[in-house]
């Protein structure tokens, strides 16, 4: 299997189709614009045909010149017509292999195979497209090679490398019913942004100028006159109907987007890691090795939190398309989240967790700073507007102070023998959990005010994510740093991912237990 191979020949057709799809819009634009007078339809067809021919040619040459080699230590991809580029990725650096099939490739039974290495800039390795079976085989192969490499020096994995692809236990799955509920909470008016974009486009290809104020004013005047004629009840009815319509559109958009993204969401746990499959039209299939999970983020939304729904993401070097952490449970109850977290080797904070609040001085400063924003409006309104109106900004300032006072209750952090915890947000609290051992640096950061008032932000270096504790009293911040550093410095980076790291982990927590006893005692 060491000779160069090509991707699936059907990739040529797909590449050509992508070019043609791009050409349709420009061809249509030519056909419906004024360019070229009566000949313009021929021009449009010509452009379309040229795009199809060139697209197919380019796709063919690209396919012909792209080869991949599955070597003993690495996987290599060579590409390029005139300038050749060769990229080599060692197996042990591959964070995860994901299979992604958007609609068209899926019809043809093809997948895009993406190798994520965690290198910055998203410049990872991708093969477009392989047949689904080839993709699956390649993924298994990469995983086996990687395990062999890791097992070779320590020989700590007896027989594990030869285990067949097991299906694993289903940890979490979204049933259609729950998916629908999830969609209801994903209320979105993004469709109006899309409509705006379409209007803008219509503006370019048709003669209607949507930025022409007179046009709208005329339209409003006509409609407004009609509305004025139908009487007050009908007006109210119309307004209510409009709002309901807006709500319906928002809900439908939310449900549609959610269903498209998370249809058939299923998370399984096997001996090697977590596997997530989701998507209605574009189906993605991601495998995340358990030991690469650096931390957890538990998020929620304003409304869904009231109903007990939360989401769980894994922080790791590999990320989802938008550069976000891998969502492993988009919509789950607390006990389901606890189960997934336990499977990933994390302990969620519970009653025995000793939370520490942010400094009260930080709370005072935040309240004063936020209230200060309203000082100038208050003065301006008191001078220039009728008496009494200046009470509005004062009221807002008081409200802000109340909110800050309440939010402080939710800004907390904790540390135990193995993990660090941070939590903030009072309407929709977000919780972050990270393993002490897998942190990379500790920074104590203080702004001008914080320096004088004796509190700080503790920033912990987490691979693939952020972890910050805000408003920590400075002495506490220093002790926290000392404790975390003690854990980090004890193990070298190269041993973090090694087989048996879990064992070391436990040994470490045993060594640290005296320390944590101190913590709990204080």
């Amino acid at each position: 299997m060491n000779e160069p191979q090509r991707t699936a020949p059907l990739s040529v057709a797909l590449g050509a189709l992508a070019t043609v799809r791009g050409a349709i819009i420009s061809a249509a634009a030519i056909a419906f614009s004024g360019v070229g007078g009566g000949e313009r339809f021929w021009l449009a067809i010509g452009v379309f045909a040229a795009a199809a021919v060139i697209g197919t040619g380019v796709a063919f040459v690209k396919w012909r010149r792209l080869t991949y080699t599955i070597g003993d230590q690495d996987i290599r991809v060579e590409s390029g017509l005139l300038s050749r580029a060769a990229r080599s990725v060692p197996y042990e650096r591959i964070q995860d292999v994901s299979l992604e099939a958007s609609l068209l490739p899926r019809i043809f039974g093809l997948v895009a195979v993406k190798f994520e290495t965690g290198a910055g800039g998203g410049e990872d390795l991708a093969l477009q497209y392989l047949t689904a079976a080839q993709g699956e085989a390649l993924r298994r192969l990469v995983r086996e090679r990687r395990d062999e490499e890791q097992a070779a020096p320590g020989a700590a994995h007896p027989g594990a490398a030869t285990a067949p692809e097991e299906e694993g236990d289903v940890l979490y799955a979204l049933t259609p019913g729950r998916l629908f509920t999830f969609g209801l909470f994903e209320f979105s008016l993004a469709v109006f942004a899309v409509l705006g974009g379409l209007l803008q486009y219509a503006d370019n290809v048709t003669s209607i100028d949507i930025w022409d104020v007179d046009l709208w004013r005329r339209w409003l005047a006509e409609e407004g006159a009609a509305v004025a004629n139908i009487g007050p009840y009908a007006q109210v009815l119309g307004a209510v109907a409009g709002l309901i319509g807006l709500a319906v559109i928002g809900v439908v958009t939310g449900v549609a987007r959610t269903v498209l993204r998370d249809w058939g969401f299923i998370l399984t746990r096997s001996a090697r890691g977590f596997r997530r499959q989701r998507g209605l039209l574009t189906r993605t299939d991601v495998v995340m090795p358990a030991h690469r999970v650096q931390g957890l983020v538990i998020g929620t939304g304003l409304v869904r939190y009231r109903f007990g729904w939360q989401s769980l993401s894994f922080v790791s070097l590999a990320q989802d398309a938008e550069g976000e952490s891998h969502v492993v449970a988009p919509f789950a109850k607390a006990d389901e989240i606890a189960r997934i977290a336990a499977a990933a080797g994390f302990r969620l904070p519970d009653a025995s967790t000793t939370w520490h609040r942010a400094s009260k001085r930080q709370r005072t400063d935040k309240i004063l700073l936020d209230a200060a924003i309203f000082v100038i409006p208050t003065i301006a309104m008191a001078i220039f507007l009728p008496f009494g109106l200046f009470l509005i900004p004062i009221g807002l300032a008081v409200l802000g102070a109340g909110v800050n006072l309440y939010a402080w209750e939710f800004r907390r952090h904790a540390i135990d023998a193995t993990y660090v915890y941070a939590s903030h947000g009072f309407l929709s609290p977000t919780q972050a959990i990270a393993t002490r051992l897998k942190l990379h640096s500790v920074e104590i950061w203080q702004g001008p005010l914080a320096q004088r008032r004796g509190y700080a932000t503790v920033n912990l270096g987490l691979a693939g994510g952020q972890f910050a504790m805000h408003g920590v009293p400075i002495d506490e911040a220093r002790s926290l740093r000392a404790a975390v550093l003690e854990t980090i410095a004890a193990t070298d980076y190269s041993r973090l991912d090694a087989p048996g790291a879990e064992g070391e982990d436990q040994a470490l927590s045993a060594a640290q237990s005296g320390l944590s006893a101190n913590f709990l005692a204080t």
Partner: protein
Amino acid sequence: MDHAPALDAAALPIAQEGELTKLHPNYAHALRVRTTLMAIPFLIAALVLELVNREEALIPSGIIAGSVLLIAILLILRIPARRYGARGYQMSADRLRVVRGLLFRSDTVVPFGRVQHIDVDQGPLERFFGIATLTLHTAGNHNASVALPGLGEELAREMRETIRAHIRRESL
């Protein structure tokens, strides 16, 4: 959810912060030169305004350029020295601590066991003053690279070797 009292600093080991090592004295000079270079565009702009103003005669000539020059001189005399004073580092057996910032103070510790790679850089100005910048890269998103400027050239290389030796010893 009980509210625990603040951690007792004395209850923890090595929570005490050691003395910071000062940077190379030439770093203060380099900072001063850099501040001067940064002030030049502002001075030129002020002179241009001054020329425009001379034709219009709106405000007495010399006010704009004079005040800009005064501010620049104050900044050049005062800020580099204070910034130099605020910076420092502390190197122990297995970690490097870098402290910097006047208004926004940052105090970072990087354990050698988490260093991915090490850079020693010298710009033209730094070469003239015989100093160098040591940069430690980690895999964390925050503090992905921690730079320690203003080390003596020799010292920067020595520190790099020390850290590298530590990494090799750990991973063997």
